[in-house]
């Protein structure tokens, strides 16, 4: 039976077990199940045990916080000093950063233990984890299915109990969609809430880090450590970080929840819709007032997103050129050959597709029609939400249109793959916080419910999710793992 972050934190505090013991436990589970699930790209066993030992010593010295000694996994695009950061790409297969991402620094500061680095879609580009140089992650609920993406390794690791909590990043749904597919809780904070420093960029204006865990309560604990101002990230907010765990338990009596009619429309799996209807019923019972709202520009989200994200990524990924770090082709003939082959060999197909599309969108003569237009639409999408939040406190929707699909089912159809993100993507464009939490099952696979909050209302989101989890047990379900 997998433990939660909160349970481990309490167990460590009461001395039921040491950090070394619990870390050994997780390392053993990883050793047992990772060969099938492929959640981890790197397992940092030695480092984890050393950190656990130090955490136990700190605790013995009376210096321990809530996360001291708690083992966690990190998405392999958070740079980790001395430990490979691959972004699941061949081009960074040999890359070891000489610095920690701010998020990693925060966890180190709070004494958390790093079990390893989790698998993902290459450079966070994908919705199924099939775009990893290290192979696809299997969904712990059914290993023939995808775990979602891009943070599929983190979501699957938490679902399978290979880590009680993990970090992820979300550019268009990369935390919420895999959280939904794997039946765990994940939150994408407001843009600017968590520092992006040391988090390898996919699309700078959309990327945001956040945690996965077994419950909203656990997410609150992890987010408290991850969030906060960082002078090294100019887009990071100076707004104070609330004590999220302390905010939980207020209930949702009178909370106004909006249901965007555009999200409960064609394309949504009917069985999944029924699951969400049931969850809405639970929230009503808790005192929430539910009403329909409209986000009229929803249909523009996907095209807008793909122009913005691809334009930014085409530029962000220019630094991977084989000159200073990462993969370099053998015996380049000249500079152009060095660039072409290093990048040609280093990047996977989806990454190349996005770089090409982004380069095109920014080209002279196309910029106005694509990039500039997309920026205008982005403002319209943002305005939709701002108007909606004048009448409601939270917005609720399914996280995805369907449950986890079979590995290989959508690989030949990128557009159908992109449509996976239809309910999640608008939030990134607007910069709003959102989370996914388990709400039931369809065909033995988890269904995720998405809650969307107003800017910097992570506390409100976590509180609502926690209230729901107090009266339901979907988040407590665990998959039976085959070995």
């Amino acid at each position: 039976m997998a433990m939660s972050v909160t349970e481990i934190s309490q167990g460590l505090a009461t001395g039921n077990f040491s950090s070394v013991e619990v870390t050994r436990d997780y390392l053993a589970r990883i050793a047992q199940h990772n060969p099938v699930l492929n959640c981890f790209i790197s397992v940092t066993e030695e480092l984890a045990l050393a950190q656990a030992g130090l955490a136990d010593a700190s605790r013995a010295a009376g210096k321990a916080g809530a996360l001291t000694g708690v083992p966690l996994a990190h998405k392999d695009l958070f740079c980790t000093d001395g430990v490979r950061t691959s972004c699941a790409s061949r081009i960074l297969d040999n890359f070891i950063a000489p610095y920690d991402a701010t998020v990693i620094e925060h966890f180190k500061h709070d004494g958390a233990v790093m079990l390893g680095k989790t698998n993902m879609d290459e450079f966070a580009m994908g919705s199924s984890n099939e775009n990893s140089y290290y192979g696809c992650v299997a969904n712990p609920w059914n290993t023939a299915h995808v775990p979602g993406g891009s943070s599929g390794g983190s979501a699957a690791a938490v679902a399978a109990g290979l880590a009680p909590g993990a970090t992820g990043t979300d550019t268009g749904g990369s935390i919420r969609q895999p959280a939904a597919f794997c039946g765990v809780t994940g939150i994408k904070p407001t843009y600017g809430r968590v520092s992006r420093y040391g988090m390898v960029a996919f699309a700078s204006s959309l990327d945001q880090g956040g945690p996965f865990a077994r419950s909203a309560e656990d997410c609150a604990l992890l987010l408290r450590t991850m969030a906060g101002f960082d002078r090294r990230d100019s887009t990071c907010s100076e707004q104070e970080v609330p004590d999220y765990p302390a905010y939980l338990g207020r209930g949702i009596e009178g909370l106004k929840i909006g249901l965007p009619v555009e999200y409960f429309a064609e394309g949504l799996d009917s069985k999944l819709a029924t699951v969400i209807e049931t969850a809405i019923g639970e929230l009503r019972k808790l005192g929430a007032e539910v009403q329909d709202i409209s986000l009229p520009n929803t249909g523009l989200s996907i095209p807008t997103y793909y122009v913005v994200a691809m334009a930014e990524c085409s530029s962000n990924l220019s630094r991977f050129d084989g000159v200073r770090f990462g993969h370099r082709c053998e015996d380049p003939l000249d500079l152009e050959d060095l660039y072409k082959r290093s990048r040609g060999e280093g990047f996977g197909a989806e990454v190349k597709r996005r770089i090409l599309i982004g380069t095109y969108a920014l080209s002279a003569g196309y910029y106005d029609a694509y990039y500039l237009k997309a920026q205008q639409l982005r403002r319209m999408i943002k305005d939709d939400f701002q108007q909606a939040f004048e009448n409601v406190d939270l917005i609720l929707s399914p996280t995805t249109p369907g449950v986890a699909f079979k590995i290989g089912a959508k690989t030949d159809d990128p557009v159908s793959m992109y449509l996976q993100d239809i309910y999640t993507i608008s939030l990134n464009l607007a910069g709003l916080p959102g989370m996914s939490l388990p709400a039931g099952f369809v065909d033995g696979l988890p269904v995720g419910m998405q809650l969307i909050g107003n800017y910097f209302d992570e506390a409100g989101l976590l509180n609502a999710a926690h209230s729901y989890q107090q009266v339901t047990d979907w988040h407590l379900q665990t998959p039976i793992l085959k070995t």
Partner: protein
Amino acid sequence: MSDWESVIGLEIHAQLATVSKIFSGASTAFGAAPNTQACVVDLGMPGVLPVLNREAVSMAIRFGVAIDAEIDHRSVFARKNYFYPDLPKGYQISQFELPIVGKGHIFISPSEGVTREVGITRAHLEEDAGKSIHDQFPEQSGIDLNRAGTPLLEIVSEPDMRSAREAVAYARKMHSLVRYLEICDGNMQEGSFRCDANVSVRRKGAQKLGTRAEIKNINSFRFLERAINYEIERQIDLIEDGGRVVQETRLYDSERDETRSMRSKEEANDYRYFPDPDLLPVTVSEEDIARIRAELPELPEQKKQRYIDELALSDYNAELLTSNRDTAIYFETALAESPELSAQLANWILGDLAGALNKAGMEVSAAPISAMMLAQLVARIADDTISGKIAKEVFEAMWQGEGTADEIIAARGLKQITDSGAIETLIDEVIAANPEQVEQFRAGKEKVLGFFVGRIMQQSQGKANPGQVNALLREKLKA
């Protein structure tokens, strides 16, 4: 040649004299071992982010205020995308649509008594690239990223110049201005101040601009003049021979004194500019601008006017003294010592000192004769301790490091003889020794007077006061 008009605009890249880089905390000092002043941000490592150095913004505003420009209250950094090994991120952070400094202007004096206004289109902030080193390793290139991320102010002029001479006057004026403003050290050898010239030609009277070529790689004012003149001639010859000028970038080769095509417009990169999502728009308040305006040092134009109005210097001397900030500082330091001698000090600084510096290939800041020393020398002429002629000898000795004017005058016994008794004795001796010439004088040959003066000065080793010698000699000869 005479039916052609050349049209020139300059793009100047001035490295801003900030302590650290524009988007990282690494040092901007020149000359360190390769790649020792490049931090992870300068290296373009994965995940790192730029953070704007506000000092660079202040310096840009200082410049904008000095050229009377519009300062944009909101300006945006954009990415200029292209691949090159010394450009670590694969893009340069620059400004495109909303530069920090908008339209402004300066005045230049291409020749004595001529003043022209040159429009400034814009000035924007950007980061410098690193350096590729092609000659140190066989079959490999080295990359030094120490310079990567150094702040640059790119100053773009209107095509307002009509000759290489005007372009040089403009470049010198800008060079002087950025040094006055203390925003750039102006060192052209180290690349702190670089000029690119856009040159085109057209028939006199034509309204439409000709096709321009952009000339790069010019690292001195002399080369700027030569490169532009070469390019003007090349374009005129080309058109007169029935050819067409193509829009292209050309490199100036100072050894062969020619420009060569580097890339044509068709080969030019599509830089795919877009706003950098890692940086917020820069906002500048009215108060920021007012504060910077209030802190502005006295600018060359103001200084020149003050020299004319308060020190009664000629327009020409005032212009020369103020065209270089270090010269003005030298002059003002000397003036503080000898406040009554502005005209004499100006003449010495612009005459003997400038000549000696020029001969030695030295900057005024490195002159072996300090401003205080020069002031003392000039004061000794004014108080009749030495003559102007002896002063030149003292100046030479000071240049050689023999000490101050007073020390040299004492050591060499150069103090002027003003005792009329002593001068009379000298005159008597010379008259006695040259009876023939005395006869000639008395016969009306006034010219012989010069002979006597020469002899007397020679006898006194130049120390006799020439005025006294003249007066007393006439008296004695007439007697």
